[in-house]
């Protein structure tokens, strides 16, 4: 009977049921079109029954899906009896489920490794060191692979000698930062009075761009150009060095100069050689208005070699050809009539120490005393101390009690013995076991046996899901008491965790991966076409999407808000970009959107537009793919090999739609592009940096002023056509109408995808055929309430997929 080769194990049973229940239907209703030499590439005549074969499984899964959705056989063809279909579907479902479980040997997730990000947060929380240290150590580890899925998914993770070497090194450095004994570093308070700066005085009339780059006032110097901050005003050029790594309190006194509109005072952390600074990280931005002086304060983590530099942004600048302008050879900065910032003083105080030795050292060296110089004082033998320290540390690091049968404690403690025997210092000896623990499998991997998770594994899974780090004391204590697995306790803990600021780590990482926010800075917008883009705007875009998603979680908003909302988050800069009036200063805040605003929902946020463009042009294809893959979870298949790509064109001669029309008229391309392109068409209303547009911009080429070449102003190009027709035949004329269609037709699918993504992310395994019913059960509990997202997280944690392995 069987037409294929002999299958073994689970495959044998499957073969029989498939032969009996499903194959007759396929022979009767499918092979006329899906045969050997038929037009469609899918050939079901030769389809085998061995479901342990990956390709065979995938094909049967496809048959199941098409049948179940009623998509096949097509409406025009003769339809099989409903009872026949039902029997076939039931048999297929059973066989596919069994085969799926057999393939994964009864276990959904294999040992999942801490991601680089989780490693950093875990080090931060476990060793009680600064967030900046955890983040820095994470960068010592090999980058997570770009696998196309979440980096938390076990099968996407690799292990290599490079990893092991990096773990050893990162642990060494983590312990350097955490274990500090001896006298405390002196806390210094340094003040820079710019008005008295000999450096600035020396630069006052220097030949920079034109003549002079700064303006001297009685109590300050005025900065008028962003460029100047790379070699003036920064802490290093004023002779203030950072001697010790740590948090520092930095304040700046400044007031606006000749400013009719807000000017932005920015503060950067950077590094430098000689006089020039590299402004690496924006650590603060504040608007200065009117004549009001302002003192601003931040507490960045600084390291030896770092500098801090104030700079200005957003100053209105008279044009090059304006008599009030400045960058012309005969002009001097003091004649400049544009806006600037008067900088009075900067203070740098630190390192800021609460206690000494720091909390990390006191916590780690449990039971050890310290003398007044900060050196350790032992109260028992070094080995006894080390045993105490290691037991407490390893229990927390492994997120479970140590295994006595394997002699786990002794295995690590004894690593210190050779050093003690050699008479090396206690601190050196205790480091070795700790370093080993930070490279050991129970630390690096989240272990859970097949079946229901025990309380410790549950605490670990939950904690890494919502906090990206190890369980805190409360979770760990509940796990030891065996109470975490209690349903109401679990729900209470989820609520507690979601109210904790550490949930921001989850929001950021999930947004980074699920909505690709990590790619926000992958391209820099073309300065000629999009001169309004800068760091501050980029940062505001990123924060908007993060704050928006955090709000959906915190306030338990329905998944529909993801598609359309009447609020978003902006600061003055982003508000201007969006055309929202009346927003002052650079703090992000929640705003209500006017009814006529094109904003509202994820798809109208500038970050998403920027991620799906290349910095210069937009194309409906990547944007359509974003909607299909990241919002709806129905990615289009990749283009067949060898098809051409669209050659971007900014000369204004053809629009992207005209270029795309060509491939839409080709039947090979049209089949997928009728699904991909429409959402991308709706999003054409947004330019590469998320500005709302009615016309394309056309490059103005270059212009020169003396030695300088600058982009010439862009010109207005062809009008944007944001209309389209969905594959279902619904026409829309703009993004508003497209969002309305999504809300009406796709809300359940958006909820299904988000639920699936949360489960994949949290459990470290993809949703496969056997897991589908569990996803549907979660959805069913939410469907009468517009799929609220906080409740969705609760239901995900409750689900059997989360609670078992």
């Amino acid at each position, binding site marked *: 009977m069987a037409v294929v080769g002999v299958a073994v194990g689970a495959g044998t049973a499957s073969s029989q049921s498939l032969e009996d229940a499903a194959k007759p239907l396929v022979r009767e209703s499918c092979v006329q079109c899906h045969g050997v030499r038929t037009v469609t590439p899918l050939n079901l005549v030769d389809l085998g029954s061995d479901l342990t074969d990956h390709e065979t499984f995938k094909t049967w899964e496809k048959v199941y899906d098409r049948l179940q959705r009623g998509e096949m056989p097509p409406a025009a063809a003769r339809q099989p009896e409903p009872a026949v279909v039902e029997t076939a579907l039931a048999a297929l479902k059973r066989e596919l489920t069994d085969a799926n479980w057999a393939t994964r040997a009864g276990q959904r997730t294999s040992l999942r490794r801490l991601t680089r990000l989780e490693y950093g947060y875990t080090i931060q929380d476990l060793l009680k060191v600064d967030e900046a240290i955890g983040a820095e150590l994470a960068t010592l580890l090999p980058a997570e692979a770009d696998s196309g899925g979440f980096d938390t998914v076990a*099968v996407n993770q690799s292990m*290599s000698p490079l990893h092991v070497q990096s773990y050893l090194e990162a642990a060494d450095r983590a312990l350097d930062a955490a274990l500090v004994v001896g006298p405390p570093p002196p806390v210094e308070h340094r003040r820079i009075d710019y008005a008295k700066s000999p450096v600035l005085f020396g630069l006052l009339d220097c030949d920079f761009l034109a003549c002079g780059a700064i303006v001297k006032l009685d109590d300050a110097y005025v900065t008028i150009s962003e460029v100047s901050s790379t070699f003036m005003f920064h802490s290093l050029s004023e002779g203030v060095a950072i001697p010790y790594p740590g948090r520092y309190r930095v304040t700046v006194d400044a007031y606006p100069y000749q400013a009719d509109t807000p000017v932005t005072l920015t503060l950067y952390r950077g590094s430098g050689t000689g006089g020039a600074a*590299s402004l690496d990280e924006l650590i603060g931005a504040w608007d200065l208005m009117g004549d009001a002086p302002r003192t601003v304060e931040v507490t960045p983590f600084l390291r030896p070699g770092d500098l801090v530099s104030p700079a200005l942004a957003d100053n209105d600048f008279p044009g090059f050809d304006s008599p009030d302008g400045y960058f012309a050879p005969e002009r001097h900065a003091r004649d400049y009539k544009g806006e600037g910032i008067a900088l009075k003083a900067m203070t740098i105080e630190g390192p800021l120490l609460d206690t000494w030795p720091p909390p990390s050292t006191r916590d780690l060296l449990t039971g050890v005393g310290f003398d007044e110089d900060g050196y350790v004082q032992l109260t028992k033998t070094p080995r006894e101390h080390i045993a105490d320290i290691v037991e407490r540390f390893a229990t927390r690091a492994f997120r479970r009690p140590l295994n006595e049968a394997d002699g786990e404690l002794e295995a690590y403690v004894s690593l210190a013995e050779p050093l003690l025997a050699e008479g090396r210092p206690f601190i*050196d000896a205790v480091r070795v076991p700790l370093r080993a623990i930070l490279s050991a499998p129970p630390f690096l991997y989240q272990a859970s046996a097949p079946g229901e998770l025990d309380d410790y594994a549950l605490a670990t899974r939950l904690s890494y899901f919502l906090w990206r780090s190890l369980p805190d004391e409360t979770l760990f204590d509940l796990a030891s008491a065996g109470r975490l697995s209690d349903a109401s306790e679990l729900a209470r803990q989820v609520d507690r965790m979601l109210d904790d600021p550490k949930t921001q780590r989850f929001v950021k990482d999930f947004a980074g991966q699920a909505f690709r926010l990590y*790619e926000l800075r992958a391209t820099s917008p073309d300065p000629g076409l999009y001169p309004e883009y800068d760091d501050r705007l980029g940062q505001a875009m990123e924060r908007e999407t993060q704050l928006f998603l955090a709000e959906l979680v915190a306030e338990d908003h329905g998944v529909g808000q993801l598609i359309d909302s009447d609020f978003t988050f902006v600061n003055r800069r982003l508000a201007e970009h969006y055309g929202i009036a009346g927003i002052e200063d650079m703090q992000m805040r929640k705003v209500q959107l006017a009814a006529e605003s094109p904003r509202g929902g994820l798809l109208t946020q500038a970050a998403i537009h920027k991620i799906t463009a*290349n910095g210069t042009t937009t194309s409906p294809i990547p944007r359509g793919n974003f909607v299909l893959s990241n919002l709806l979870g129905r990615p289009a298949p990749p283009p067949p090999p060898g098809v051409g790509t669209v050659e971007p064109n900014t000369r204004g001669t053809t629009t992207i739609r005209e270029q795309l029309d060509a491939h839409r008229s080709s039947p090979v391309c049209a089949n997928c592009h009728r699904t991909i392109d429409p959402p991308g068409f709706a999003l054409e209303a947004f330019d590469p940096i998320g500005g709302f547009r009615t016309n394309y911009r056309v490059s103005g080429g270059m212009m020169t002023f003396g030695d300088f070449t600058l982009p010439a102003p862009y010109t207005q190009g062809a009008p944007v056509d944001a209309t389209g027709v969905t594959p279902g035949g619904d026409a829309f004329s703009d993004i508003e109408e497209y969002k309305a269609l999504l809300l009406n037709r796709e809300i359940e699918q958006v909820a299904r995808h988000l639920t699936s993504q949360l489960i994949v992310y949290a459990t470290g395994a993809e949703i496969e055929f056997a897991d589908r019913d569990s996803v549907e059960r979660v959805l069913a509990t939410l469907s009468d309430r517009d799929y609220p997202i906080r409740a969705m997280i609760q239901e995900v944690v409750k689900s059997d997929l989360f609670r078992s392995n």
Partner: protein
Amino acid sequence: MTIPVDRRTFLRASGVALALPMLESMHPALARAAAASPKRMLNICNTLGLYSDSWFPKMAGAGYEATEYLSLIDAHRDNYTLFSGYAHEEQSGRQPHNSEITFLTSARRPGLDGFRNTISLDQVAANSLGYVTRFPSVTLGTLTAQSQSFTTSGAMVPAETSPAEVFRKLFLQGTPEEVEREAQSLDDGGSILDRLKTQTTALRRRVSATDQRTLDAYFEAVRTAEENLGEVKAWQQRPKPVVDMARPEEIPNPADLVARVKAMFSLIPLIFETDSSRVVSLMIQDHGVVPNVQGVTSDQHSLSHHGQDDAKIEQLKKVEHQLVEAFGGLLTDLGAKSDANGPLLDQTTVLFGSNLGNANAHTSTDLPILVAGGGFSHGQHIVHGGDNAPLCNLYVTLLQNLGVESDQFGQSTGTLTWG
């Protein structure tokens, strides 16, 4: 005949001052290395492409007319070969620039559907050579730790981006305290890894068959890391070479793209001359800012998406002009510097090219590829009809030239020979 010493015996030996003869006996590879004439490999990738019209000559063969870019390095014409029509298949990835992670690996469909990268050309070479030099390979970048070097299991080897740090690692001895601390850290690391192996074995008994496979991969990684640590330790005991060059300054501004590239280019001949490594890869990255090249107002990535705008193409060429010219300078240096076996260039196979054929449209076919030095016969433009002949065939040839016993790499279907 000397008997190789067991590494374990070596690690148990106390103290830091071990006599060199013992090290030599432990590392027969070292003696081999000194005897044979070393072969070397250098891979350089311009990740934002090279503007095709200014790169590819129209004619095939030896008498081709140098194009705009090639005229910048035409003095070296007899020392390199150009290739047209070569690429890897299926390089459309999740992100349009994903082909930069597969330039040296040829893995298909980067970033899609549980993608896992495969070992890169340079790492095959490095694995084959091992610790005959202080560093089996050196991986360099110009901006971030992203690189094109991948291990067997698909982990990315981080790139070193600071010329000063490269110089320190290769040529600066460190204070006696630093050296001792490093030695201690290596010793501790050795005993830690040994203990982790036994702990993993204990753990293995308690987990499912699936989890055992994960632990086996971990165990194997630890075992190899332990071996490497022994090699590193042996090298740590040998003084670093002294070079006639001051430690380079950091170049903090990412706008100084060309200066950063040149700084790395100035270190490469030193790495080879001192035999610190025989495998070097450099990825010239997207710096994301307007480079300070005269007359350029957009960042290189924006320029690469020139959209057929002539003004942008002009600027793009200004940037690429400088990069190609700097590469010419590197060829000059490699030709001028010699070790006991002759000019470095003759012993070094240099691959210079890009993962993008047409950056404006992100296509990864018909890649610009140049091979210099390495003792090959040069001077020609090798043209393959079409745009997608297996570049990996060239990679196999390069590996064989390096002495790697392999007739296959990535998507190869054979070797690529010319002459």
